[in-house]
C-alpha cells in the first residue's frame, strides 16, 4: 500500500470507485442466486439511503461513527501501524464516557458533555497505548495485540455493564446518561446528532495535524521510513505510541457518539462491528481524511439501504455485509483494479 502526499491522485480516486462497482457486480450474483432482481434490489437500497432528506440524514448518522473509526485506522496507518483494535477502543471509550455521563450531575452541559467526550477519548487512547508501547519498546507486532485487546475490551465492558455500572434494570445496560451529557440531535426524528460535527472537525484536524504540523511530519516520517526518521532525530517509539494513542482516541469517539448521541446509555456489545468496518473505510478512503469521509458515507448508505432492502425485498440483508467484504478485498487488490482499468483503456 503506497501512500501519497496530502492530496489524492486521480488513480487513488478511481480505484475505489472501480472496486465499489466490482463489489456491487459480484453482489448481484448473490442476489440472482436467491432469485431476485439485482437492479430492483439496488434501486431500493440506494433510493432509501441517498434520496430525500430523511434518508440522507440516516446515512450521515450511520456514517458518523465510521468516520471516527476510519480516521483512527488511517491515522495509525500513516505511522506505519495497523490498528485493528478500533473495536475494543471504542468500547472502552464508550464505557468511560457513559460513566462520566451518569455520575456527574449538576454540571452545565458546556462542561459535562466535553468532560464525557474527553473521558472517552482518554480511555480509548490509553487502551490503544498498550499495543503502541509493546510495539515501540519491544517490537511486538501491533496487529496481534490489538486483536487480543479487542477481546479483553469486550469482556471488561461486559463485566462493567452487568456489574459495577449496571443500570439496575434487568437489561445489560447502564443507567441513562444525564441530559447534560447528551449530544444533541440535529434533524429529529433522525438520530443524526452533533457527533457529525465533531466528526467533520476531526477530519479537518487530522488533515492539518498530519500535513501542517511538525508532529504530523514526524508521524508520517516514521510511517514511511522509521530508520531514516530516527536518523533525522525523530523518536520512533514516541511517535508510534503517540500515533496509537491518537488513533485510539479517534476510535473511541465512535463509541462516544453512539452512546452520547444515539443510545443514551451503554448497551452490552452495542457496536455492529464499527471498528472493523473502520478498516474498510480507511482502506477505501486511501487513508486520507477526505477519502475517509466519502467512504464512511458510502458504508453508511449501504447500511441504511440494507434495512430498507430487507423490509421491501426478499434479498437477505446480509448481502450488504457481503458487499462490504468484497469492497475491502477489491480496494486492497489495487493491482487487480489497475489491470482491469488498463484493459479497458486499451480496448
Amino acid at each position, binding site marked *: *500500500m503506497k501512500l501519497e502526499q496530502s492530496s489524492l491522485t486521480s488513480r487513488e480516486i478511481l480505484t475505489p470507485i472501480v472496486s465499489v462497482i466490482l463489489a456491487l457486480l459480484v453482489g448481484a450474483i*448473490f442476489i440472482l*442466486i*436467491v432469485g431476485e432482481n439485482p437492479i430492483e434490489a439496488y434501486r431500493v437500497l440506494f433510493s432509501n439511503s441517498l434520496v430525500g432528506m430523511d434518508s440522507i440524514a440516516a446515512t450521515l448518522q450511520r456514517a458518523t461513527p465510521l468516520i471516527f473509526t476510519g480516521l483512527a485506522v488511517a491515522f495509525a496507518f500513516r505511522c506505519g501501524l*495497523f490498528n*485493528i483494535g478500533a473495536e475494543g477502543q471504542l468500547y472502552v471509550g464508550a464505557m468511560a464516557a457513559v460513566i462520566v455521563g451518569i455520575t456527574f450531575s449538576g454540571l452545565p452541559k458546556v462542561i459535562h458533555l466535553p468532560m464525557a467526550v474527553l473521558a472517552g477519548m482518554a480511555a480509548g487512547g490509553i487502551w490503544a497505548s498498550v499495543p503502541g508501547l*509493546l510495539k515501540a519498546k*519491544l517490537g*511486538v*507486532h501491533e*496487529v*496481534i*495485540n490489538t*486483536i*487480543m*485487546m479487542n*477481546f*479483553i475490551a469486550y*469482556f*471488561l465492558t*461486559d*463485566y462493567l455493564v452487568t*456489574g459495577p455500572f449496571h443500570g439496575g434494570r434487568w437489561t445489560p445496560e447502564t443507567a441513562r446518561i444525564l441530559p447534560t451529557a447528551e449530544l444533541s440531535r440535529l434533524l429529529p426524528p433522525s438520530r443524526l446528532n452533533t457527533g457529525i460535527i465533531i466528526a467533520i472537525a476531526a477530519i479537518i484536524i487530522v488533515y492539518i495535524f498530519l500535513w501542517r504540523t511538525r508532529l504530523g511530519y514526524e508521524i508520517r516520517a516514521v510511517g514511511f521510513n522509521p530508520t531514516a526518521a530516527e536518523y533525522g532525530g525523530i523518536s520512533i517509539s514516541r511517535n508510534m505510541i503517540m500515533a496509537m494513542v491518537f488513533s485510539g482516541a479517534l476510535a473511541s469517539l465512535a463509541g462516544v457518539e453512539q452512546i452520547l448521541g444515539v443510545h443514551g446509555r451503554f448497551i452490552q456489545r452495542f457496536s455492529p*462491528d464499527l471498528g*472493523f468496518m473502520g*478498516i*474498510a473505510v480507511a*482502506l477505501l478512503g486511501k487513508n486520507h481524511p477526505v477519502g475517509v469521509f466519502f467512504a464512511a458515507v458510502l458504508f453508511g448508505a449501504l447500511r441504511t439501504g440494507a434495512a430498507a432492502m430487507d423490509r421491501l425485498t426478499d434479498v*437477505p440483508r*446480509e*448481502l*450488504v*455485509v*457481503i458487499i*462490504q*467484504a*468484497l469492497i*475491502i*478485498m477489491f480496494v*486492497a*487488490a*489495487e*493491482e*487487480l483494479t489497475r489491470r482491469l482499468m488498463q484493459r479497458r483503456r486499451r480496448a
Partner: protein
Amino acid sequence: MWDYLVYFVNATVLAAALRMATPLILTSMGGIFAERSGVINIGLEGMMLVGAFTGMLTSYFTGQPWLGLIGALLAGALMGLVHAVASVTYKVNQVVSGTAINIFAGGVTVFLLRWIFDVAGTSPAVSRLPVVTIPLINRIPLIGPIFGTHNIMVYMALIIVVLVHIFLFRTVWGLRLRSVGEHPKAADTVGINVFLTRYLAVIVSGAMAGLGGAYLSIAHLSRFGDQMTAGRGFIALAAMIFGKWTPFGALGASLLFGFANAVQMRLQELGIPSQFVQMVPYILTMVALAGFIGRATPPKAIGKPYEKE
C-alpha cells in the same frame, strides 16, 4: 485442600479441556501452515465459520457426516484459496484480506441460512460424526477417563498434530514451506516455487480451519448457529503464537486454553466473574509475545508479499 483441587482438576475436567481444545488445535494447525509459509492468516475465524456451515449443510442434505467433513474441508480450502489469490497473487495486505474474509464469512453464512432454511439463528439438527471409545486406552486408570471416549474428530486432531509436525520437520515439503516463510527469495533461487508453496499452504490452512469449524457443527454439536465459532479462530491464532508457530507448541497452548475454559466452568462457583477468566488466553498471548515467556518470533517473511522482480 487436596479434595478441593481434585474438584477443579480431575479426569472429567481434563476430558472437557480436550474437547474444548479440539477446534483450537485443528485451526491453529491451519494457522501454522499459512504463517510458516509467510502468509498471515487472521481469516481463520471466518474460514472456521464457513467450514462449520458447510459441514452442517452437507450433512443435512446427504445425511452423511463424513461427507460433511469433506464439505467443510473443501469450503475452508476455498476460503483459503481466496486468501491466497488476494494475498499472494494480488499482494493484498494479508491482514486486510483476512479481515475481509471474516466479514464475508459472517455475512454469507447467515445469507445462506436465511435463503436455504429461512432462519437467521440456528440450523436444523443434522447427523454428526460418531463418538468412539478406544478399546485399550479406555481401561487405563486416569488416562482412560481422559482419553478413552471422544468424538472421532478429537482423535483426528491429535493425529493431525503429529502429522503436521512430521510434515514440517521431516519431509521435503515441510522444509521448503519453512524456507519460503523465512526467505522466499532464497527458496526461489534453489528452484522452489514460492507462489505455489504459499498457495498450497494457505489452502491447507483454510481446510484445517474448515475442519476446526466442522468439529463444532457436526462433531461436538450437530447444528450450525450464527457466529457459533464465537472467536475461536482468534483464540486458535493466539494458540499458534503462544506455541511459537510449532505444532506441539500450538497443541500445548490449545490444551491450556481449553483447560482454562474447563476449569473456569467450575471456578464460576467461587464467584469469580467469568469475564475475567475468558480474558486469560488473550492476556497470555500478549504476555508471550512481549517475551516474558521466552520470545515468540514469527517467521521472518511473514506478511510480505513476494515480488519476483
